[in-house]
């Protein structure tokens, strides 16, 4: 079931577009914002609310990199793996993160704190390597400072 707050936010998005289903991506974003990810059940409820089939909405949800159809940790780490960061040695950051957190790409730490994902160019290539933790951007990252960065999130 969508919560009253989710419903009112989605209704607002629907009011801005000519057809109900055009608010689909916004609706998925709203659900994910409240629940961290979009479960099968949330997807079905959202689809029903928009008047589209769950399959149709899922084809949209799974198309985009940042709609999560699996549970994620409290903080999602997006590590840039594109060209400038590759040239500047992001692979060292990747190894350090995987070792420190004991997880691979797509996995979540057992305590539910972090999920690690590769991400395309973060648009800050002059400050490579770069990563984001949740909404926060980190630039010119070195393996040495990673521990300190991670310690800011619990």
């Amino acid at each position, binding site marked *: 079931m969508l919560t009253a707050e989710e419903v009112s936010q989605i209704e607002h998005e629907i009011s801005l577009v000519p057809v109900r289903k055009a608010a689909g991506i916004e609706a998925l974003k709203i659900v994910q914002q409240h629940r961290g990810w979009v479960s099968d059940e949330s997807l079905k409820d959202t689809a029903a609310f928009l008047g589209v089939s769950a399959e149709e909405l899922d084809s949209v949800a799974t198309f985009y990199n940042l709609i999560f159809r699996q549970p994620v940790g409290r903080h999602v780490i997006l590590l840039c793996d594109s060209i400038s960061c590759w*040239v500047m040695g992001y692979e060292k950051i990747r190894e350090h993160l995987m070792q420190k957190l004991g997880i691979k790409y797509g996995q979540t730490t057992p305590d539910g704190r972090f999920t690690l994902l590769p991400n395309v160019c973060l648009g800050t*290539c002059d400050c490579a390597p770069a990563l984001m933790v949740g*909404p926060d951007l980190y630039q010119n990252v070195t393996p040495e400072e990673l521990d300190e960065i991670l310690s800011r999130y619990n």
Partner: protein
Amino acid sequence: MEKPLTQHITPDRKPLSLKEYEQVGGYRAVHKILKELTPEGVTNLVKDSNLRGRGGAGFNTGLKWSFVPMGPEVPRPKYLVANADEMEPGTFKDRILLEGNPHQLIEGMIVASYAIQADISYVFLRWAYKKAAQEITKAINEAYAAGYLGQNILGSGYSLEMHLHTGVGRYMCGEETALLNALEGKRATPRAKPPFPQVSGLFGKPTIVNNVETLCCLPHIVNNGAAWFKGLSRTGDAGTKIYGVSGKVNKPGAWELPMGVTVRELIEEYAGGMKNGYRFKGALPGGASTDFLVEEHLDTPMDYPSIAAVGSRMGTGTMIILDDHTCPVGFVHNLQHFFAQESCGFCTPCREGLPWVEKILLSLDRGEGKPEDIQLLNFHTKALGPGNTFCALAPGAMEPLQSALKYFGEDFERHINEKQCPWK
């Protein structure tokens, strides 16, 4: 040297508020067009200024607008979209404008919207640009409160709505017809052209999509005129350009410079030259989907025709450097991994071809390449080239590959003959 686009941007300082922006002449262009110019007058001015789209293709902006149906009988609402998706690897220029001076973008969007008589406008912003999202939201609210947006702007009778839409991460959202599908809540796959978006775009209505940097030029063209804008440039292409350099240089960064500075000036003067111990081997002049330039091209001016004349594209104007300590095969593998992942899967050559190319490059990189692999790679550069795929993603992906095979062919061969990556 004039830097109209970045003159009011100071790194690490909050962007100008609406009041501060007005104090330095901001929104003068809106007053001027609403009082003194017809929509056609604005379009003609921009056409005369020879402003070319900064999103990568370099199409004349005024000419693009002139295909929008005008007059009382046309379908409404008409739309204007600012393309702030910026996901081309190696590109970080629009971020500076978005975070640094959101009112300049909004003013540019009002100018463009007025020219095509748009009713509704969107900023399509990529998810990762969190700071930009905050600043733009604030600036849009200020602009509404000051009467630059909304009903009957400055008493002129012209009305315009503006909304911020943040994407959920897919390179294809930057392609203008795929962007329209994303705005309609669909998967970001491209649309067949014709009909062109100018005639049938968002929700089937006339729509213009322009890049952020393109839009930011507009207030200055309105205020200072077409001749002034042309005079900013060193070459036939008008205006300034935000150029950038990333890779193993001393001072990677982005700078607003006269259109037509040379590749060498960018690397040696602005980026402070190569880092100690590293030599220049090649560069992608304008993001991941442009052909390599090499040493012999260093004195080429960075403008659309000059870069095209040496076999590449200006693209986004933000350059990625390949140095002599970095393996060109690994470099191209990284790019093809990106393109294979971001392919929307709509057409077969791209969906099937890009992962194949990625696989071949990975096996070369691991020293498991076979002699026939080079031929296979060359085959793909043709099979996925212009005309064989539904949109420009796949041909763009082939540009760095075909030029790497041309300039660094020996390095590819060495991976096969030595059965290992010579850089590892």
